[in-house]
């Protein structure tokens, strides 16, 4: 049931409760009159369920859309995320370490073997290590977003 409808129902019942109160009814009398809240809610829902069991064309389309989306998610989205997430984790660990090595190498002119290969092709300078930290932060962020996303 949509939120707007729920709000409307509660507002209507509340309106009656206040009206009863205004007529001099006690709180116990009002709650007794309205009965068990669960029963009242069930009465609303029961009406809704018995109304929507017709298998019309629209309903078929809704079911088709649901299973279409579910199978798309199973075939593509989940495998892509399953492969993508570990790669992002690896990047998140590797980039700061490599960035730090590059930074030390560049600052102290140590000439660590292969350290000169760390970098993005075309850009070779001291500040590249800063760039690595940005990459790290962004990839960590993406990984976190994926974790949050998969929780839903």
């Amino acid at each position, binding site marked *: 049931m949509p939120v707007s409808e729920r709000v*409307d129902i509660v507002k209507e019942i509340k*309106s009656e409760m*206040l*009206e009863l109160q205004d007529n001099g009814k006690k709180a116990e009398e009002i709650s007794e009159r309205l*009965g068990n809240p669960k029963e009242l809610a069930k*009465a609303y829902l029961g009406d809704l369920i018995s109304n929507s069991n017709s298998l019309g064309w629209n309903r078929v389309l809704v079911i088709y859309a649901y299973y279409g989306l579910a199978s798309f998610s199973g075939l593509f989205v989940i495998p892509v995320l399953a492969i993508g997430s570990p790669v992002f984790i690896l990047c998140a660990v590797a980039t700061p370490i490599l960035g730090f090595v590059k930074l030390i190498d560049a600052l102290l002119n140590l000439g660590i073997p292969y350290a000169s290969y760390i970098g993005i092709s075309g850009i070779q300078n001291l500040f590249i290590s800063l760039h690595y930290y940005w990459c790290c932060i962004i990839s960590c962020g993406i990984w976190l977003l994926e974790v949050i996303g998969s929780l839903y």
Partner: protein
Amino acid sequence: MNIDDWKSQIKRGTLEFCILLMIKQRTSYGYEIISTLEEYPILAAKESTIYPLLRRLLKEEYISSSWKESSEGLPPRKYYSITDKGLEYISTMSDEWNNLLNAISKIKGE
């Protein structure tokens, strides 16, 4: 003799008709409808029956609703009024109701 069972079945069938007739007479709100029905023991129904029923009639567009401010100190009320579709429905129901009454009186042999 289980008359209550029979009465509740009668009520289930006629409550919709009665509520529509009341709303046709004049624009009304939930509590007022329930209070009026309470005057007639055969029709008396609880909130848990009337409100879902009103909601269904609203969905089927036999009635329409609007929130209106009421007198001082009271919260706004949700007023229901009849639609053209509702009027048509009432007239069909009235015909069927008359058919039923005629049939009963004929069977009784009056």
